[in-house]
């Protein structure tokens, strides 16, 4: 698909520099723009098969290197917001499900409903407006203060700049997990064992704790692991809004400037990332649920 793009990677690499036609032709050979579409894909696949993802046009280093560096930065952001959204989302879901039909359930439901219809980047913009521009608590953009090298940034400075993007990203993740947890808990509340626990005179919150959370936690964790897809998508948008130098920004840059090797590399990495999430979800289910665990023993 990239090959159909109207932007020529040679031009992207050269930027504004003036070069002669011969040089252009040599460059074209080097980057493969003179080749046909099929040949370029095959070429890229061959490079990939040899264990290399090629060379990034805009960063001028191997794609693997760019991805390693950018992805690590994003990973912190993603892990932090993933954990926050897991805890908050699950908690809200349990409260809403337990108090189904009450005002607090309706409030949580409305909140989730609205959040699910809100573009991620706009939440980021609103938080930026409120906390950075209006209240002035956080910087506007850039994860590293201007004029400072990345490795001289203290932990606190770094954390300070992580807060807003992480909150934005977790707000997005909360909604779906909350709704899922709520639905699951409501299903548990309709189950025979919930009914029986009630019939045995156990207290309502006791049942929610002993039976509700016990039965909802596992599927909820699974769902949270299956959300890596949205998490990655959200990261791209959030990094753009907060100018956080991670994989998201690299993706946008690669896309806008037709850095084909980098973009394809990112596609591979993100797919692996999503796949790992799915795999973890599977594994957790297998090893934690006694019903499935014992099937494997036999």
């Amino acid at each position, binding site marked *: 698909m990239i090959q159909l793009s*109207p932007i020529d990677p040679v031009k992207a690499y050269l930027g504004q520099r003036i070069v002669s036609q011969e040089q252009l032709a040599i460059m074209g050979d080097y980057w493969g723009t003179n080749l046909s579409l099929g040949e370029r894909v095959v070429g890229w696949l061959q490079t990939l098969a040899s264990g290399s993802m090629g060379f990034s046009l805009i960063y001028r280093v191997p794609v693997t290197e760019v991805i390693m560096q950018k992805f690590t930065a994003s990973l912190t952001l993603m892990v932090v917001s993933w954990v926050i959204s897991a805890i908050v989302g699950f908690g809200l879901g349990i409260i809403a499900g337990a108090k189904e039909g009450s005002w607090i359930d309706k409030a949580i439901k409305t909140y989730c409903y*609205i959040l699910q219809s809100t573009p991620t980047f706009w939440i980021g913009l*609103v938080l930026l407006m409120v906390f950075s521009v209006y209240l002035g608590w956080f910087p506007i953009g850039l994860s590293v203060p201007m004029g400072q090298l990345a490795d001289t940034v203290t932990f606190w400075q770094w954390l300070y700049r992580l807060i807003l993007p992480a909150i934005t990203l977790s707000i997005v993740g909360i909604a779906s997990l909350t709704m899922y947890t709520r639905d699951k808990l409501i299903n548990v509340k309709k189950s025979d064992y919930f009914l029986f626990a009630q019939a045995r005179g156990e207290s309502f919150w006791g049942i929610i704790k002993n039976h509700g959370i016990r039965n909802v936690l596992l599927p909820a964790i699974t769902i949270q692991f299956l959300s890596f*897809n949205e998490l*990655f998508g959200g990261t*791209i948008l959030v990094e753009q809004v907060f100018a956080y130098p991670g994989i998201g920004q690299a993706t946008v840059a690669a896309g806008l400037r037709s850095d084909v090797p980098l973009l394809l590399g990112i596609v591979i990495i993100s797919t692996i990332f*999503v796949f790992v999430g799915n795999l973890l979800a599977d594994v957790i289910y297998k090893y934690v649920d006694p019903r499935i665990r014992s099937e494997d023993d036999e």
Partner: protein
Amino acid sequence: MSEMPWYNKGLFSSLNLRQKTLLTIGLTALVLFIVFISGMMIDANLPTNFSIKMQGPSFEHIFGTDWMGRDMFIRTIKGLSLSIVIGLGASIISSIIATILAFIASFNKYCDTFVSWLIDLFASIPHILLIMMISIGLGKGAFGVIMAVAFSHWVNLTRVLRAEVLQIKTSEYVALSSKFGRSKLWIAKEHILPLVLSQIFVGTLLVFPHAIMHESSVTFLGFGLSPHEPAIGIILSESMSYLAMGAWWLAFFPGASLLIVVLLFDIIGDNLKRLFDPSEANN
């Protein structure tokens, strides 16, 4: 225990749940229709007036004005109607893709495996990334965005339809029909399609809000509609440059309006779904 059910309280106490659902759908659709029509009638080239540039919300310009003195309310309405058009195009195309794939999956085991594989593949590439790539590949612009959104949103509906078709296919009357010598295409047309039509319809509506959101997202990132189009994504990405100056209205109102439109589509989809499948209402 025999307390009054929730739907008998409050404003619409005289209506039953069915009437209320229909009323909700009607009103919501009306609002969206008005937004759409008024947006269509607005000329894309809004008058610029630099003497009133960058003004906050006032009675004259309820959403404020931008750096060229254009009224943000009018720009927003125009953008929303554009979003609706793109959303409509994208969801219809994605439903067509989903329907075709679901039917292909129903042909035989190999086709089914292929479609499942396709579903897994598309489900594991992050949506935004996929849309970006398709959009770049098709040369950005409205066509590119519509296709990109369509090609990334067929997955869920295909899953639903595939399961549904599989269930109908294994039912007895279809087996009987096939014994009578009816061709597969005939069975698909006469037996399966009518049964899954409501699913397709609801599925299309449920894709709508996602389509609108993703369109504005990729446009915001710079991969969707081109900067001279009056899209919400463009307006918001433009507003980034003025945020630090405190021009909050440039980002707030267009985004909130987009949220409301998405929410309205969500409400229509959910209500229709409940109308077709009442099991949820019994909860």
